[in-house]
């Protein structure tokens, strides 16, 4: 398998009124073509900024300092010209956000928004061709009456529907990499479960690689092939999903696992306060050692 995303020693700091804050302390993370990789961590761990660096958005923020290597499909995102980075977004890589309804534009119909996305890849595409392709994609995400949905505005659809539209739109240009930041967290649990299953099947079918960013261990377990655990800007554990979940090696990962309430009713765990063990070196699992 060839490496699609290759992040090496990525560092990020922000310059603010109170001086410099370090957010990422040398992250290395790679995703092979077609691989589903999860990045798990708590709020403030730095997991969400990684997606914004891969998209090349933070490099253009004045207060942010990014260093290290972010290789994508043979190119280097960090040193790319802003215009070239912009060309990649929505074509070679796309993104799904936490709240589907607010990330779609309320003033345009779904059909309009599909056409806009598709014309990023091929500006000469006719509207009829766009609509035909959009209907095809909406059918793939099991939306009934896709031709009617194209005429609708996002606020006319339920949260679950909008999430499916987002997934269809994110995949319509056949991106090589999909970045999903806490997808479906704003939705009901049963809707979230359905859409994640749908997304899983779809990226498998299209061979799309996914960087799945989440705080929810259960969701990660069901979605990802491989897991990175991030704590305070450092990767603390990496390995195949089954291996990490059966055999968490790092103290922080173990604390996270213990803290999740179980439906089998094991009671409420005693959770350690932040301990030095959380800062222990990274634990790496062998591939295929599940």
């Amino acid at each position, binding site marked *: 398998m060839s490496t699609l995303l290759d992040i090496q020693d990525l560092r990020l700091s922000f310059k603010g009124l109170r001086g410099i804050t370090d957010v990422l302390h040398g992250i290395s993370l790679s995703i092979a073509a077609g691989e589903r990789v999860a990045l798990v961590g*708590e709020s403030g761990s730095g997991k969400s900024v990684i997606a914004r660096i891969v998209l090349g958005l933070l490099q253009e923020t004045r207060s942010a300092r990014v260093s290290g290597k972010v290789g994508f499909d043979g190119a280097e995102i960090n040193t790319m010209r802003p215009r070239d980075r912009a060309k990649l977004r929505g074509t070679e890589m796309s993104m799904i956000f936490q709240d589907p309804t607010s990330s779609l534009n309320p003033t345009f119909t779904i059909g309009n928004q599909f056409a806009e996305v598709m014309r990023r890849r091929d500006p000469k595409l006719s509207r009829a061709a766009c609509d035909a392709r959009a209907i095809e994609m909406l059918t793939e995400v099991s939306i009934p009456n896709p031709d009617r949905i194209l005429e609708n505005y996002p606020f006319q659809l339920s949260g679950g529907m909008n999430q499916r539209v987002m997934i269809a739109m994110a995949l319509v240009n056949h991106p090589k990499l999909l970045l999903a930041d806490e997808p479906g967290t704003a939705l009901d649990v049963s809707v979230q479960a359905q859409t994640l299953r749908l997304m899983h099947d779809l990226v498998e079918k299209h061979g799309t690689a996914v960087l799945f960013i989440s705080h929810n261990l259960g969701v990660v377990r069901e979605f990802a092939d491989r897991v990175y655990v991030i704590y305070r800007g450092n990767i603390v554990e990496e390995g195949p999903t089954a291996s990490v979940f059966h055999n968490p090696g790092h103290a922080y990962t173990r604390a996270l696992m213990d*803290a999740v309430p179980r*439906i089998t009713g094991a009671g409420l765990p005693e959770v350690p306060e932040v301990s030095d063990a959380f800062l222990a070196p990274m634990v790496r699992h062998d591939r295929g050692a599940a």
Partner: protein
Amino acid sequence: MSLLTVDNLSKSFSVAGGMVHAVRDISFAVERGECLAVVGESGSGKTTLANMLLGILSPTSGSIRFDGTELPAKRRASHRRAIQFVQQNPLSSLNAKRSIGASVRLGLDTYQIGERAQRWAKVEDALEEVGLPREMRHRAPSALSGGQRQRVGIARALACDPELVVLDEPTSALDVLVQARVLRLLNDLRTRKKLTYIFITHDLAVVRNVADRVAVFKSGQLVELGETAQIFTAPKHPYTRSLIGAVPVVDDAELDLRNRLAKGT
């Protein structure tokens, strides 16, 4: 006698194009000292129910009896002290422009609890009780983490010395480790202060570990009510089974149980 009895409670709202029946003809009772989980998805009516219990909304029909007396639609302050509230969002539930001590003190001033001169000491006691340092009362909410803010929210509710606490998704906005600590704190406080909880949540894994009984709501109706152990070994209603089937799980034992319960065998 039950601490809280809800009889044939309904609430409808008129909206453009008709009526929305948010809560339909619900009856249940909450015993002293128990934790009743109210479970449902968005639109299930669980928030409307909470707002009626708290006296923020008045019921369209039906009655709410607390400690033997029926609560009037327009509630006076004297009716309010015994039923308190912890909100989901720890960020907006505290006033950014006031110290957290001032927020916690509000209940003490409103109900004239303790001598005026001793109230700051009582505020500090309340903070200590939820695991926060006493001197934190001078801080602004912006200086606190999400978990600390939620502890302040709990301290503010408990400062009124309530009997029933309505917890509206109290840990949904928190990180996993912080959630575990806050849940333990809530459990400890319930035993220590002999409190009764109505725990509103969508997270069934949390419910399994904190609740004595579970009430499942769907589209404003109570579809299943039972002991927690019973709900998680033999759920009766298909909707309850589908809710359990959607829970994200982390270990194999859970996965087995979930798949077994979802299938209904």
